[in-house]
Every structure is written in C-alpha cells, then in structure tokens.
C-alpha cells in the first residue's frame, strides 16, 4: 500500500531529523538570563536583556562553532521565584551558565543553590555586598558592583570636590538603600561633611511631596537620592516641580538619571549630578561603537542597565572563547572567567581577587548633548574603583 510506504518514510524522516536535532542540541551553548521582566524592574530588565542580546549577536551567536541559545526567565523580583526559575534553567534546560539578577535578595537566595550545584552565575546588577565578600562563591562573578563600591567614593567626592557640607539622604527603604545611605554618609564624613537627615520612603512611593517638607526643614546644601525605575522619574519630576532643584542641588546614583528617565522627565532632570561606571556619553571609541550598535539594533539609547547586560554577556563570551566553547571542565571555565579582560564601553574591564568588577567611576551631569537631547555628560572620572575602598581595605 502506497500509504504505508509514505507513512514509513515519514517516520524515518522524523527519526533522522529528531536524532540530528538532538546531536545538534548537545552542541549548543545555553545561557540562562534571569531578569525581573514584570513589575517595577520591567524597564531595566528589558534594557539588560537587550544589552546581552547585542553582545551575543556581535559574537555571531556562536563560540568555537557552537551555537549560543538564550533562555530568558522572569524572576518577578521575588527570591522564591528566582530560585525556582534558576532550578528550572539549570536542571531542566541544562544551561551552562546563568546571568542577570537585578533584585539583591534574589541573588542571596540563589547563592547556596548555585554553590552546591556548581553552576556559574555572572551577576549583572544585584549589588548585595556580601556575595563577593564574606559570602563569596567560586561560582559567582559580578560585573556590576558591590554596594558602597561607587557610593562611598562619591560621598567623599560630594563633600570634598563638590564642596557640599550638609546633605540630606533620600533612598528607597531596602537593605540596599539603607546600606548605600550609610556608605554615602561615611564617605562624606571622611571629607569633613555631614548627613543631616536620612529619609527612607517605600520602594513603590508614588508621591514624594510629603517627604519634601522634611528636606525643606533640614535646609541642606544638597540632596543625595537613590531611586530607580518608575520611582526615579517621579522623584526627579516632582523634585523639580516643587522648585527644590534650584534651592538644593540634586545628586544621585546612576539609575536616577537613566537615559529613559531623561527622555521622560525632560528639563526637570537638567543639572542633576550622578555617578556610575557607565554613561552613553563617554567619549571613547569602544563606547561610541557600542552606543551606535545599540541604537541601530533597538532604536533607543542604551542606559546603565543596557551596559550592565552587555558587560555580563561579554564576560561570558570572553570566558567561553578562552575554553573554546568547551564547558565540560567547570574549573577551567571558572579560571577563564576570572582572567577575563577586555575593553568595555566604560573602560578596561577586569575582576578583582574576589570576582567582583573593578570600574572607572564616572561623575556625570545632565546637560544637553551635542545632538540636542539631554545626556549624562561625564564631568570627572575616578579611576580603578574596587569594592573595598580605599583600595584594598574594607570600606567600613
């Protein structure tokens, strides 16, 4: 019967394709991207995934002839979800390496599991301090920074170079927010300044007006703010609406004046001084290439989280290249990651002895760029900032 023959032929074909597919699948390099694609970190997560996508595309989506496959999971900025998704990525998708994680408690929740399971993770954002210090693991690398790494030197900078002596701290109420507030204060104190009031509103604060009364009562020289995402836009806009920006200059951590916030807030953001290990306005060939490529690929300006995702992905790519895409020996891959060095958009990239990134810290001011729209223009740079600051010593 012709029908049967066709049927057999079909099954034979399916078998060949199926087997071939499996052989091919074993040749893939799978990278798990763990980001908070829903909730208040949706915007930053999108940027991070885009930055990573760009890096992998630049590498031709393959290393040593093996195809790179990205698997994105949403950790919903909840530690239990992050752990479940990490288990799914490691055990069922069998990814060779994980990257991402914005929300610090998630990073801490993953640590014991990854350590036990010997699964490498390149943290692209979470700044929870101990994970590259007393709670470090050979399997965890961080391309972002430990809390305090940038804020402690900036506190010193604000109260010496910028000359402010009385400062109000306003940061979101979390372990990270409060820790950064303390780091800012200790840096400022070193330079002879003082933090006269610390305000910690909830992360999801919609209206900052009530807190502005407390800033006015304290009557400082300047205000230091730590906000990101939707809350950062609200803060910057309302701070300007209430006329506080003229009275008390606004200083803040990078995400406060992220590129998408400059676009949404407009003139309200002008003049704000922020600090981060990156700005799309950095005047270097490596950065210009990155910004051009990002614009072309995604039609928007790369923000701090875009460069974060890009950095983490580049570290994975460079590490994988060093082992020719062969992940069978985890120890070899880890050693390769530790030794990774390359010219990143923000300057030369490398890890310290504790697998945490060493960065240039850019002091940036919001002002109109060459093309017209507002940019974070670097006005100063502090070189080679490590997580222990001053160099080699714990910051506290």
């Amino acid at each position: 019967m012709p029908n049967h023959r066709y049927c057999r032929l079909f099954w034979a074909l399916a078998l060949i394709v199926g087997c071939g597919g499996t052989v091919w699948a074993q040749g893939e390099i799978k990278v798990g991207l763990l980001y908070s694609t829903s909730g208040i970190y949706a915007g930053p997560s999108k940027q991070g995934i885009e930055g990573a996508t760009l890096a992998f595309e630049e590498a031709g989506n393959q290393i040593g002839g093996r195809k790179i496959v990205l698997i994105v999971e949403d950790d919903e900025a909840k530690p239990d979800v992050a752990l479940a998704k990490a288990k799914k990525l490691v055990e069922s998708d069998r990814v060779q390496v994980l990257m991402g994680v914005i929300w610090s408690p998630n990073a801490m929740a993953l640590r014991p599991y990854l350590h036990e399971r010997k699964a490498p993770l390149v943290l692209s954002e979470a700044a929870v301090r101990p994970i590259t210090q007393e709670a470090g693991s050979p399997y965890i690398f961080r391309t972002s920074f430990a809390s305090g790494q940038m804020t402690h030197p900036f506190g010193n900078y604000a109260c010496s170079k910028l000359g402010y002596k009385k400062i109000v701290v306003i940061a979101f109420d979390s372990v990270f927010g409060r820790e950064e507030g303390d780091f800012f204060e200790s840096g400022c104190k070193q330079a002879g300044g003082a933090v006269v009031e610390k305000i910690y509103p909830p992360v999801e604060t919609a209206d900052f007006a009530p807190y502005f009364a407390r800033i006015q009562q304290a009557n400082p020289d300047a205000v230091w703010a730590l906000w990101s995402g939707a809350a950062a836009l609200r803060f910057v806009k309302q701070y300007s609406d209430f006329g506080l920006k003229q009275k008390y200059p606004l200083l803040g951590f990078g995400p406060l004046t992220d590129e998408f916030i400059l676009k949404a807030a407009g003139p309200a953001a002008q003049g704000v001084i922020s600090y981060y290990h990156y700005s799309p306005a950095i005047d270097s060939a490596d950065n210009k290439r990155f910004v051009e490529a990002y614009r072309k690929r995604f039609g928007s300006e790369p923000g701090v989280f875009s460069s974060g995702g890009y950095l983490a992905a580049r570290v994975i790519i460079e590490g994988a290249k060093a082992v020719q895409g062969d992940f069978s020996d985890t120890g070899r891959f880890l050693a390769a990651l530790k030794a990774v060095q390359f010219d990143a958009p923000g300057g030369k990239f490398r890890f310290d002895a504790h697998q945490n990134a060493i960065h240039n810290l850019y002091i940036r001011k919001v002002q109109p760029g060459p093309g017209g729209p507002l940019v974070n223009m670097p006005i100063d740079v502090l070189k080679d900032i490590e997580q222990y600051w001053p160099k080699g010593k714990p910051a506290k």
Partner: protein
Amino acid sequence: MQVAGFQILNGLVYGMLLFLLSAGLSLIFGLMRVLNLAHGSFYMLGAFIGLALLGWTGNYWLALLVAPLLVALLGALIEVLFLRPLYRREHGGHLDQMLLTVGFIFVFADIVRSIWGADVLGLPTPELLTGAVSFLGVFMPKYRVFIIALGLALGIALWLVIEHSGIGTKLRAGVDDADMAAGLGINVSRMFTWTFALGVGLAALAGVAAGPMLGVNVGMDVEILIVTLIVVVIGGMGSLKGALLASVLIGEADTFGKVYLPEATMFLIYLVMLGVLLFRPTGLFGLRHQ
C-alpha cells in the same frame, strides 16, 4: 505651620485623586454589587490613552476630555459583553465577577505592555499649569492646585447629578433596591451600563490627571487599586459622600504619616481602616441593610 499647610495641601491632592477613583468604584459596587477589581486598570488605560492622544494632537485638555470618554465606552462594552451574563448566576455571580475582573487586570497590563512597552513614560505638564504658586508662604506647583480644583468640581457635579436630577434619583433607587426599581419601570439594565461606564470613565480621568505628577507605567494599576479599595471600604460602599470623606482622610493620614511617623506610614492607613470598621462595620456612610 508652613509645613503643616504644605502637608494639608499635599494630602488634598492625593485625596482628590483617590476620590476620582473611589467614587466610581463605590458607585459601581453600590448599584451593581460588582466589585470591579480591574478599576486600577482603567486608571492605567486612561493614562496611556491620554498619553497617545497628547502625542497625536499635542493638546493636553483634549486628552483629558477624550481619553476618559473612550475608556467609558470600553467600560460599557465590557459591562454588556462580559459582566451582564454573570448577574443571573447563583449569588449574583460574585466570585465569577471577581475572577473576571482580576482576569482583566492581566489582559490590560499585557495589552499596554505590548503597545507602549515596560518603560515608565512621562506625561508632560500642560504649559498653562507649569510653575508654582506661593500662598501664605506655602509653595505649591500649579498643576497640583488644579488637581484639587478638578476633584472638588467633579465632586460637586456628581453630587448634583446624583442628588438633584432624574437620572440620579433612578440611580439611588437602583442602589437601594434594584428589583423594586425595576418593578417601577426603571430600566435597571441600562442603568448598570451607564454607571459602569461613568465609574471607569472617572478612573480614566484620574489616570490622565495623575500622569503629569506620577508618570505613566505598567504597574500603576495595581499600585492604586489597593489604596482605592481601602478608601471604598472606609467610606462605605455606594456612598459618594463616604468616598470623598474617606479619600481626604486617607490622603491626609498618608501624607502626615510620611512626615511625622515615617516608619509606620503603611500601617497608619490600615489603622484608620481598622478604627473606622470597629465602630462602623459598613464604613462611614455605608448602607445599613444588606
């Protein structure tokens, strides 16, 4: 004293936003016994549609007027197509209604995310209202003063319609006893549609009005929903007066709490709710009979 005046005004601004939301939610529940958990989503939709209209026409006032009308139309469609079939179910289909409106929260959030993306967007302040006014040493952005005026004006308009017009009389009759009202020849079914459209239209208006202050983003829907529910519970389901009073009460409690009791702000709102419910289980102006 200046700080107190500043905070009273801030509390009023927040209170007026809450009022626009809770008035609609409260009326819908009062008349239709539908707890519209997607109320915050209509608030978000209003803001995003307002943003689109503003980008398209460049006119904020047009956006403030037209976006709520479009959302009201959408609300009417949803009432007719989705909610109406549920009224006849057992116990008025309460559980089904809740599930349905919760479902709409996700649907609208995903629609908005796919059209406008996950980034937070800014709704520019209309030129007429940029800048600030200073009154007795209290400094206040003009736009916020406008929000207070808008809330009060709409409150008065709603009160006039509900207490002193033919439609309002029928509406109140429906709230008191829908079956009896239907028996007297009032088209309760059409009344339901109108009320639902009005309620979600008000939420959308609040969304457009809040945009220039709070920004526009996916997530604003759920943020505002919880506080709005608390306001409605405190004010009493179905009472406009209750919604107004409770909105201002929560607005002020929240604002003052943030300054004088910063560690207990979240708790303070629940404390107010607890206090009110202990002495008036149906809320400040809630219906006694159920």
